[in-house]
C-alpha cells in the first residue's frame, strides 16, 4: 500500500476530534482581518457610547432630573451594549456566512463531515472570545469614562465600586456571548450575510422595540422576552424604554437569553444537517 497507510496515527475519537475542530476554528477566527476590525469597532463604539451615556447621566444628576445623587460608571456599559452588540454580531455572523459566501464551507465539511461538530466548535470558540471582548471593552470604557467624568466640571457624581463593576462587566460579557451564539445559529440557517444580519437585527432589536412601542399589552409582554430586553434585565437594568419596568428578575432574563441562543443553534443545526452544502 501507499505511505499514507503506513504513517497513519491511530484514529482519534470523541473529545479528541472535537478538540481538533476547535483548534481549526480557532485558527480560522484569528487568520482573517474582519475579526480584528469587528473587535476594534466594538471597542471604539463601547468607549464612545459609554462616554455619551455616562455624560448624559451626569448632566441629569447635576440638573436634578433624576432622584439619585451618584451613579456607577459601569452602568453606562450595560446601556451601551445595545449599540456595541452589532459590531460583535457582525463578527459572529462572518464566522459562518463568510464560509458559505466563499465556498469554504465545502472544504470545512470535507475535513469535518459531522456538521454538528463544526457548528459546536464555532459556538465554543466564539462564546469565550465574546465574553472576553465584553469584559475588556467594557473595562476600558469604564476606566475612560471614570477618568473623564470624575473631573469637577461634570459634578463628580460618578462612582466606581469593585462589586458593581465586576457584575456589570461579567454580565455584559455573557450577554455578548449568548447573542453571538444566537447569531451563529442564524447564520447556519440563513447562510447569506445579508439574511443573517437582517434576522439578527430584527430578533435582537427591531422586533422587540417595535412590539414594545406598539401599545398592545400582549405585544409588550412578548417583546420583553426577546433578546434585547431579556439582556437588559439580565444585566441589571429595569427600564423597559416605555416608561415601565421589565417585569422579571435578572435570572429570568438569563434564562430567556439562553433559550434564544439554543433556539438559534438548533435551527442552524437542523438546516446544516438537512441541506446540501
Amino acid at each position: 500500500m501507499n505511505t499514507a497507510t503506513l504513517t497513519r496515527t491511530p484514529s482519534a475519537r470523541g473529545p479528541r476530534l472535537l478538540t481538533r475542530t476547535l483548534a481549526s476554528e480557532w485558527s480560522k477566527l484569528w487568520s482573517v482581518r474582519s475579526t480584528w476590525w469587528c473587535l476594534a469597532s466594538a471597542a471604539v463604539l463601547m468607549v464612545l457610547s459609554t462616554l455619551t451615556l455616562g455624560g448624559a447621566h451626569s448632566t441629569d444628576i447635576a440638573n436634578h432630573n433624576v432622584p439619585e445623587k451618584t451613579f456607577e460608571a459601569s452602568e453606562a456599559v450595560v446601556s451601551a451594549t445595545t449599540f456595541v452588540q452589532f459590531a460583535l454580531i457582525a463578527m459572529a455572523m462572518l464566522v459562518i456566512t463568510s464560509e458559505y459566501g466563499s465556498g469554504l464551507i465545502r472544504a470545512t465539511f470535507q475535513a469535518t463531515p459531522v456538521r454538528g461538530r463544526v457548528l459546536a466548535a464555532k459556538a465554543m470558540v466564539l462564546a469565550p472570545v465574546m465574553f472576553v471582548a465584553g469584559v475588556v471593552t467594557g473595562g476600558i470604557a469604564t476606566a475612560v469614562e471614570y477618568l473623564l467624568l470624575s473631573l469637577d466640571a461634570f459634578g463628580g457624581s460618578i462612582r466606581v465600586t469593585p462589586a458593581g463593576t465586576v457584575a456589570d462587566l461579567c454580565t455584559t460579557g455573557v450577554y455578548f456571548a449568548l447573542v453571538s451564539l444566537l447569531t451563529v445559529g442564524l447564520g447556519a440557517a440563513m447562510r447569506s450575510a445579508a439574511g443573517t444580519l437582517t434576522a439578527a437585527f430584527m430578533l435582537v432589536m427591531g422586533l422587540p422595540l417595535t412590539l414594545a412601542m406598539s401599545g398592545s399589552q400582549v405585544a409588550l409582554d412578548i417583546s420583553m422576552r426577546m433578546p434585547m430586553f431579556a439582556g437588559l434585565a439580565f444585566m441589571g437594568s429595569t427600564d423597559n424604554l416605555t416608561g415601565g419596568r421589565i417585569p422579571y428578575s435578572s435570572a429570568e432574563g438569563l434564562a430567556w437569553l439562553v433559550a434564544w441562543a439554543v433556539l438559534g443553534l438548533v435551527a442552524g443545526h437542523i438546516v446544516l444537517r438537512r441541506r446540501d452544502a
Partner: protein
Amino acid sequence: MISLNGLTKRYGDKIVVSDLSLSIKTGAVTGFLGPNGAGKSTTMRMIVGLDRPSAGSVTIGGLPYARITEPLRTIGALLDARAVHPGRSGHAHLVALARSNGIPLRRVAEVLETVGLGAAARKRAGALSLGMSQRLGIAAALLGDPGILMFDEPVNGLDTDGVRWVRGLMRSLADEGRTVFVSSHLMSEMQLTADHLVVIGKGRLIMDAPLTEVIARSSLTAVVARTPHAGELASRLTAAGIGVERLGENELVATGAAIERVGDIAHEAGVRLHELRTREASLEQAYQELTEGSVEYGART
C-alpha cells in the same frame, strides 16, 4: 476504493445523476468524462458527503464519508479552487485544515513546496490568480497524504507548464498505488494520463472501461490497407460483413475488424499487401461518438 451503488440525485423534477453504479479502481488514474451538466461535479460532491443522494449510496473503503474519522487522510478532493476565504492566506487556510484532521503542521510547508506556491502562500487567497488558486486547492487535497485523490477539472486555469505538472502529478500519485479520480474536458490530456475512463451523459453511465478499450471500440479505430488490388479486397471484406471505405485507388479503411482478420482475408484472397496498419481513433473522437446523443447544453453548429 470508492463504490457508487445506484447513486441518484434529483434537483426538483430534474434527475441530474441517475442510478450510477461503479467502483473506482485503486492504483490507477480514472478519467471522469461527460458533457457540461452531465452530473460529474454533482457526483463528486456526493462522494465526499457534501450533497445527499436522493437514492443509492457511496462508500469509501466500505464506509460512508461521514463515518471516516480523519477524512483528509483518506481522500483528498479538489472540487472548486475558489473555495477559500479570500481574506485568509493560503498558508493559514492549510493550517486550519491540517489542525482539523490532526495532520502535522510540517505537511503544510511540504505540500506548498510540492505545488510550487512558495511565497504566494502568505498572500491573501483572494489575491491569487486562478492558476495559483488551483495549485492551492491541489495542495489542500494532498495535505493528509491520502490514498485516494479526486480532482474536478484540475487543469482549469493552469498554464502549459502547470498542465504538464498536473499530468505528471496524477501519474506519480497513481504509480505510488493511490486512486486518482479526475474529471476533465481536455481529451488530449486525459488520453495521456488516464488508465481507465468513466463516461456519463445526462447523469447516466455511458461507459466504464479501460482507456485502450474505449479507443479500440470506437468506429474510428480502423485498419488501413494499401494494396494494388484494393477493389478485390474491398469486395471480400464487404462480403465478410466488415465496413469498408476507399481512401484512394490503392488504399482502403476497414472498420469493425481486428487487423489479424483483415490480414487473413487478404491472404485467402491472394491479395498482395504493401501496408497493413491500425489507425487508432483519438480519445476525442471516441468520446464524441459516445456522447453524441447526450449533449444537453450544446451550441448549434
